[in-house]
């Protein structure tokens, strides 16, 4: 039982982290109709910034705060310099240009920080396990990721559902032309949304950095999962991204923990040991396939509401 609770927390933490990434992706995709493959690069930039600024300032929290602002600025600069030229073009152009951006960011990072990667050490108060229920210890850092992510999700919900900017964002996701026609400064809105998405990606990257290492190309694997989540959740829907991210996080983690035992019931130990890791890593994609068959527009489609 303790194990199950711990695995659920692990799944929740992973899911929330994916939500940070997917939220920015789905916003940009939904509102600007822009496929941004380089979203993972912003995740990487967030991690590199955090590692660098933490080392400079000597304070984890201060380093993280500067890194967040830095990633926001990088995101807005990318929007102004590159993305603006891509609106209204074919999706294939988006893919090509943003793939170029990935190469650009990877090579820039190699030039600035070198190929070896960095580590972002945690302050000692985050690096120890805490007792969350009698007898159940959980990593303080992972717990803090859960708390921060939930707070960000709530803040995002408030921003999108309760503020004027949020209203424009929702309107943009439903009908872009009409928002522009009504005299909204869509250019500024786009820059803001892209910057927000970048900051969220940067936050995900810097939160993941102490668990993994800060390295070139760190965003490229995880961004695929973020795309899966936007597809499952419905493009442009923050709520959909949230639900889908939690689903994916839980399925991935619980699959990894219990799938071997399940397969062992039906097959030999040898088969289970080799087949289960392969099969459990497919679970997420199976979920996506099922969602695409049953609800091709995703669980929560922004366009229809």
């Amino acid at each position, binding site marked *: 039982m303790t194990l199950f609770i711990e695995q659920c927390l692990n799944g929740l933490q992973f899911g929330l982290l994916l939500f940070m990434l997917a939220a920015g992706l789905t916003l940009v995709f939904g509102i600007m109709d822009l496929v941004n493959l380089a979203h993972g690069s912003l995740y990487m930039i967030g991690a590199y910034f955090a590692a660098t600024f933490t080392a400079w300032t000597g304070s984890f929290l201060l380093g993280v705060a500067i890194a967040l602002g830095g990633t926001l600025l990088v995101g807005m600069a990318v929007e102004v310099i590159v993305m603006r030229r891509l609106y209204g073009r074919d999706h294939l152009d988006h893919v090509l240009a943003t793939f170029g951006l990935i190469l650009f960011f990877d090579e820039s990072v190699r030039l600035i920080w070198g190929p070896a990667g960095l580590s972002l050490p945690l302050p000692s108060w985050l690096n120890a396990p805490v007792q969350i229920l009698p007898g159940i210890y959980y990593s303080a850092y992972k717990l803090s990721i859960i708390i921060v992510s939930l707070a960000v999700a709530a803040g995002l919900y408030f921003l999108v559902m309760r503020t004027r900017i949020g209203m424009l964002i929702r309107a943009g996701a439903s009908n872009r032309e009409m928002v522009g026609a009504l005299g909204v400064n869509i250019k500024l809105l786009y820059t803001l949304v892209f910057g927000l998405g970048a900051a969220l990606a940067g936050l995900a990257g810097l939160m993941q950095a102490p668990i993994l290492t800060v390295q070139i*190309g760190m965003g490229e694997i995880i961004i695929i999962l973020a795309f899966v989540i936007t597809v499952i959740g419905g493009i442009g829907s923050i709520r959909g991204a949230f639900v889908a991210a939690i689903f994916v996080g839980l399925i991935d983690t619980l699959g990894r*923990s219990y799938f071997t035992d399940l397969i062992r019931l039906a097959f030999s130990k040898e088969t289970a040991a080799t087949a289960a890791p392969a099969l459990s890593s497919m679970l997420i994609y199976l979920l996506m396939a099922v969602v695409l068959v049953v609800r091709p527009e995703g669980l929560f489609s922004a366009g229809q509401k």
Partner: protein
Amino acid sequence: MRKTLLAAGAALLLAAGPAAAQQKTIKIGFISTFSGPVAVIGNDMRNSFELALDHLGRKMGGIPVEVIYEDDGFKPEVGKQKTDKLIESDKVDFITGYIWSNVLLASLKSAVDSKTFLITANAGPSQLAGELCSPYVFSSSWNNDQTPQSVGLYMNQKGVKSVFLIGPNYAAGKDMLAGVASTFKGKVVGQELTKWPDQLDFSAELAKAKDANPDAVFVFYPGRAGVQFLTQYAQAGLKGKIPLYTAFTIDELSLPLQKDLALGVPGAQQWVNDLPNDANKKFVADYRKKYNSRPSFYGAQSYDAAMLINSAVVATKGNLSDKNAVRRALEKADFKSVRGNFKFGPNHVPIQNFYLQDVVKDGNEFVLKTTATIVKDFQDVHHAKCKMPAN
């Protein structure tokens, strides 16, 4: 008159024959990973190989050496393409490198079919020591399961009664976990294979290990994943609670990032920086002078690969077209290895000592130190399955 001229010409051609067999350059193909996060390993291998060439005066048996480095991009299919390119279009005499067992297994057939000598400088899939052994394939490293087998023996010495195994789900990962399980006398209470190389979050596996409450955890994560594993091991609160034993998880490349997380975590290795033989002292000292960092075991094996190739070129006086002679020369392993004694078993895998290595703090630096010899003249268990054709 014409006849005599023709005869003279023919005689000249005949005389020129043996000279033509003498090569103008020795071409060596080197496949490793030079891009992406694991490029640090590839760089260390290339640096060591280059250092070996420096030590040889960039000549083997008086013939200049040309090395063509190719990046496998950490992918078996790319590794195979590059191997084919080196063999078919560059027509290399030797091919070496190979970090990853899955890359080597994909590339093996091309080398064997074209009778190109392949010296693996790291990857040691068990199939290669057994049924897939070939007259054209040699190893300057080890067979995958030998190192974890040594760790298993060491855990027996330490009186460990139960162990939980964690490793990546690919050829080497499976070999490693099977290796520990084969020599460890206690109980294996659990085993986890993770998706490789994508999965870098081990929280689910660590939670299971904690729940199983074993005497020890054994882990194999090469390259950067080793840093991530040790970090998460500490964050999960397992460091200091359940002793950790490793193979290929802590080395000179990962140690600068692992730092004190690696303190007190033992591992086994056939080569350590501080082995006290002359060849090694020269290798380590010159490496540190040239690159301002410490070589890793990947580098040491690449250095040995260069020296092994050199020994064969010297013994055959550069006549590499006689494949049987080259093979005989390679089998003799007539060179000074940085690991001390070096000899090949019948399957072309070295029979060698395995040492216990520990992490110690030397000033501000963390370094690896040999603390004991776990097993002497250790031969892999797969050689019985190898049907090496007689020479």
